[in-house]
C-alpha cells in the first residue's frame, strides 16, 4: 500500500479536528435569528418592569450565524456513535431500531403543536390515543390500570413506591423496608431512598435468581415492597416467581416489577400474571422511542385494582357513549386518594405517540415475535461466543438459558490475559461497535452484559462474536493493545479522574 495515511499524518481526520465549543465559534455581532417587529409601541423596558428586577448584562450566548450552527452540530454529531450506524448491544437498555414512521406521526401538528392545557373536549384525539396506549399496555402487562404520567423508568419506580406507601397507609400500615436483589439496577435502591424507605438487599442463588431462604428471612412486617426485574439483569427468568410473589404478599408487601426487561417476554408472560402489583414499562426500551443520547423516554405504570385508587392525577378516562354516540375522553382530576402529580401536565405525550405507533405497527403477534427474536438473537450470540475464545476468557456468568440478554464474566480474561472488561470494551470501539454494558450487574466479576435485541441481523451478531474473538486472540499475543485501546475514536481514553477532581462543568465566558 503506497504511502498509507500520507507523509505526516498520525491521527485520523476526526482526531485531528479538536473539540471546539459553540462559544468559541462566537464572533460579536453575528446572529442567526431575525425576530418579528413588535408591532406595538417600543416602550423602554424599564417603564414596564422595574429596573432593579432586570438584567444588567445579557447572558453570554453564542453569536453565530445559521450556517455555522448547522456545521457545528453536524460535525460534532459525527463524534457520536449511534444505533443507526452500528451494533449497540448495551445490556439492559434494549437498543432496538427506531422506526422513522414514529417520528413522522409525532411531528404532525395535531400532536406537536397541541397545548397541554387545551380543554379535553378539544383534545379528544390526544386523549383517545393515550387511552388506547393505556389499554395496550394493560393487556401486555396483564394488569387492569395504567397511568402514563412517569417520565422514565426511574420515575415509574418512584411512583410505584409512593403508591405502595399510599396503599399501605390507607390500610393503616407503616412499613419501612424495600427488598431489592443484589442484581438490581441502581435506580431501584436509589428510588427506595428517595421514597423514604430503607433498602434491604437480597442475595442471589446459584442460578442467578432470588435466594428464597434469604427472602423468607427478610420478608416481614416491615416489608413494604419487593422490587424485581424478571428476567433479571442477568437475563435469567426467575423460575420461582410464584413462590417469591406468595412470600412477599403473605408478608403484606407489594410486588414491583421493573419493566426494563419486558422485551424478553411480550406475549409470552405478563407481570400481572406473575403476581406483580405494580409495573413500569420503559417506552424507550421495549416500545422503540429513540434514546436521544439519554432521553426522552417515558415510564408508564400499570397496576392492579387494589392500587388503582392511588394512581397519579389526572387519569385519562373514557366515557361510554350516551345514546349510541361516539365515546368521549376526559382527564379525571377527581381522585381523592391519588398520590398526586409526579410532574406537569399529562406526561411525555410525544413518546406516547411514537410507542403507540409502534404497537399499532407490530400488533399483538408482532410484539410476541419481537420478544421471540430478541431471545433467539441473545441465545444465538451466546452460543457463537461460547464456541470461540470468549468461552474461555469471558464465559457466561450463569449457565442457565438466558432470555433476551446475557452476562459474561471477564474475570478469566483479567487473570489469564491481563486485560480487564474495560479494555475489551475499549478495544471493541476500534472495531466500530458499541460495547455491552460493563461492570453491571455488580454480582458478576468484570461483567459484560450483552443485549443484542431483535432488530439485529445474524451477520451483525456473527461480526460481534468475531470481534470479541479477535480481541481475545490479540490479547493472548499482546495484552497492551487492548490495554491502550481505543486508537481510532475521535478521542482516546479520557482522564476521568482529573475531571472529577477539579470539575469544569461549564465554559468560562
Amino acid at each position, binding site marked *: 500500500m503506497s504511502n498509507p495515511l500520507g507523509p505526516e499524518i498520525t491521527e485520523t481526520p476526526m482526531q485531528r479536528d479538536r473539540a471546539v465549543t459553540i462559544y468559541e465559534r462566537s464572533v460579536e455581532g453575528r446572529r442567526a*435569528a431575525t425576530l*418579528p417587529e*413588535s*408591532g*406595538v409601541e417600543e416602550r423602554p*423596558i424599564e417603564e*414596564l418592569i422595574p429596573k432593579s*428586577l*432586570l438584567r444588567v448584562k445579557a447572558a*453570554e*450566548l*453564542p453569536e453565530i450565524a445559521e450556517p455555522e*450552527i448547522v456545521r457545528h452540530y453536524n460535525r460534532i*454529531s*459525527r*463524534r*457520536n456513535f449511534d*444505533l*443507526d450506524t452500528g451494533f449497540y448491544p448495551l445490556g439492559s437498555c434494549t*437498543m432496538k431500531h427506531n422506526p422513522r*414512521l414514529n417520528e413522522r406521526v409525532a411531528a404532525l401538528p395535531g400532536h*406537536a*403543536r397541541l*397545548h*397541554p392545557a387545551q380543554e379535553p373536549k378539544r383534545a379528544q384525539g*390526544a386523549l383517545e390515543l393515550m387511552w388506547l396506549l393505556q389499554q395496550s399496555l394493560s393487556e401486555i402487562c*396483564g394488569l387492569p390500570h395504567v397511568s402514563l404520567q412517569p417520565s*422514565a423508568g*426511574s420515575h415509574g419506580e*418512584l411512583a410505584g*413506591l409512593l403508591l405502595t406507601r399510599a396503599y399501605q397507609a390507607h390500610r393503616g400500615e407503616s412499613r419501612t423496608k424495600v427488598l431489592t436483589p443484589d442484581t438490581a439496577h*441502581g*435506580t431501584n*435502591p*436509589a428510588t427506595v*431512598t*428517595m421514597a423514604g424507605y430503607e433498602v434491604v438487599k437480597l442475595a442471589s442463588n446459584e442460578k442467578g435468581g432470588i435466594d428464597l431462604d434469604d427472602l423468607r428471612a427478610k420478608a416481614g412486617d416491615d416489608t413494604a415492597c419487593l422490587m424485581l426485574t424478571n428476567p433479571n439483569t442477568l437475563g*435469567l427468568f426467575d423460575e420461582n416467581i410464584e413462590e417469591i410473589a406468595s412470600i412477599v404478599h403473605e408478608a403484606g408487601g407489594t410486588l414491583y416489577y421493573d419493566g426494563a426487561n419486558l422485551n424478553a417476554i411480550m406475549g409470552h*408472560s*405478563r407481570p400481572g400474571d*406473575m403476581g406483580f402489583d405494580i409495573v413500569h414499562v420503559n417506552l424507550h426500551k421495549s416500545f422503540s422511542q429513540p*434514546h436521544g*443520547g*439519554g*432521553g*426522552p423516554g417515558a415510564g408508564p405504570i400499570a397496576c392492579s385494582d387494589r392500587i388503582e385508587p392511588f394512581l*397519579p*392525577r389526572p387519569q385519562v378516562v373514557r366515557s361510554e357513549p350516551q345514546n349510541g354516540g361516539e365515546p368521549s375522553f376526559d382527564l379525571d382530576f377527581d381522585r381523592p386518594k391519588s*398520590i398526586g402529580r409526579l410532574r*406537569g*401536565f399529562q*406526561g411525555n405525550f410525544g413518546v406516547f405517540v411514537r410507542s403507540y405507533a409502534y*404497537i399499532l405497527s407490530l400488533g*399483538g*403477534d408482532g410484539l410476541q415475535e419481537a420478544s421471540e427474536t430478541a431471545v433467539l438473537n441473545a441465545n444465538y450470540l451466546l452460543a457463537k461466543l461460547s464456541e470461540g475464545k470468549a468461552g474461555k476468557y469471558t464465559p457466561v456468568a450463569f449457565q442457565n438459558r438466558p432470555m433476551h440478554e446475557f452476562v459474561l464474566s471477564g474475570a478469566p480474561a483479567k487473570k489469564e490475559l491481563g486485560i480487564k472488561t474495560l479494555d475489551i470494551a475499549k478495544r471493541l470501539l476500534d472495531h466500530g461497535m458499541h460495547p455491552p454494558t460493563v461492570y453491571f450487574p455488580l454480582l458478576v466479576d468484570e461483567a459484560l452484559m450483552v443485549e443484542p435485541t431483535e432488530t439485529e441481523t445474524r451477520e451483525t451478531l456473527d461480526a460481534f462474536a468475531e470481534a470479541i474473538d479477535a480481541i481475545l486472540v490479540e490479547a493472548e499475543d499482546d495484552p497492551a493493545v487492548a490495554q491502550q485501546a481505543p486508537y481510532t*475514536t475521535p*478521542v482516546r*481514553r479520557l482522564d476521568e479522574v482529573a475531571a472529577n477532581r477539579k*470539575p469544569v*462543568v461549564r465554559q468560562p465566558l
Partner: protein
Amino acid sequence: MLDAIGVSSIDELFDVIPEAVRLGRSLELPDGKPETEVYDRLSGLAQRNAHAEAETSFLGAGMYDHYVPALVDAIVGRSEFLTPYTPYQPEISQGGLQVMFEFQTAMSELTGLPVSNAAMYEGPSAVASAAYLAIGATGRKKLVASRGVHPHSRESLVTYGAGYGTELVEVPLVDGVTDAAALAEAIDDDTAAVFLQQPNFLGGVENIEALGAKAKEKGALVVVACDPIALSILRPPGECGADIAVGEGQPLGNRLDYGGPSFGFFCATEEQIRRMPGRIAGETTDVDGRRGFVLTLQTREQHIRREKATHNICTAQALNALAGMVHLAWLGKRGFVELGELLVRRTAYARERLAQVDGVESLHDAPVVREFAVSLDAPVSEVLDRCAAEGIGAGYPLGRDYPEHENGLLIAITERRSPQDIDRFAEVLGNAIAESRGAPVAQGVAL
C-alpha cells in the same frame, strides 16, 4: 440459528418460564398494520385536536407556543443525536457530551448560577427534586412555597414529599406577587427551602432578592423556578441570592407536544455541586492530550452510588436539552434579549387592550413579562367555548387551581401572536363575554 443454540424451536427458549405464569394465548391487540395505515390512523387522531396551527392560541401556564426554528428539527433529527443512549463510552460519545457541556454553560448563563446539570425530566419534577436536594443539604423537612409557584410544581412537591415526610406551607399572593410578610413569617429554623417562581404563575415578576432574604437568614435554601425565556431580561436568580434555579425548558426549542417530552433544568451554587441530581458533563483531556468531555461526578449517581445516590434519575431528556441549546444558539446573545423585549412589549399591549374590553378586569397590576391574568365577568368555561368556536384559544382558566379566581383567565403571548391577533382576540373575547352574560350582540359587528 436454532441449531447453533442447540434447540429445535423458539418455543423451547421460553421453557424457562414456568407454565403457570405463561400467557398461553395471543395478546388481545389488533393485528400489525402497514406503515400507511398506521399513518392514517394517527393522522386521523391528530386531526381531532385543536392545535396551535389550527387556532390562535393564548394558552401558556408553563408551556408556550414559541416558534421552533427549522434548524432545531434538522439537528435533533440526525441519527447521530437521536439514536444513541447516555454517553457511557465517552470516546464514541463526544458529540452528545459536548452538547451537554454547551447546554450546561448556557443554563448557567441564564440562571447566573455556576453549576448546571445536563437536564431533568421537566419543570415540576425538577422543583420537587430541588426539595430533595434541600432536605439532604439542610437536614430539615419543612418546605415553604409561594402560591405563585406553578400548581403542578406545588402538587409535585407534595407527592415527592410523601416519602420523606415533608410539610408544605403555602404563602399567598398579594396583587400578583408573593406576600413578602407572610413568606417571612412562614420561614423558620425547620425550613429546608423556600420555593418561588419567576415570573410567577399569574405572570407577575417577583423580587427574588427581597423575598429570599429571610430564608438566607434562617439557613434555608432559596429555590427559584424560572421561565427560561424571561431570564433573557430578568435579573438572573443566581444574582438574587438563589441557591437553586430550576424550570421547565419547553420554551427553549421544544414543541408543545401536549406537554412533553421537553426538559427540566437544574442549576445551583458551587456548594451544591456534589448534591446535584442527574448527568453532568465535564471537560478533560485524553491520553494524547486532546480535549474531551466525560460524564463527571458520577459518584452522585444511582448507577455508582445506588441507595446513597443524590437522585434516582437515569434516562433524562438529553435530546430535548439539545433542542434547547440549538434554539438558544439560533437566537444568540442579542436575539435572546430582543425576544424577551418583544414579549414584554406585546404583552403590555395585550394587557392594556384586553383591559378595555367590557367584562374584563386585570387580576393584578404587578409587572409581567409574557403572561398576565384577568378576571371575566362571565362564566369562564362558556367564554372559552365561544372563543374556541371563533378559532381562538383564549387562555388558561384559573378556577381549578385558584378557586379564589373562579372566572380568572391566564393569557400568554409569544412572538407568534401578532398585534393583529391580539386585537382580534379582544373583539372575540368581548363578544364572547357579552354572549355568555346573555346580552345580545349587534349582528355583523361581531367580527
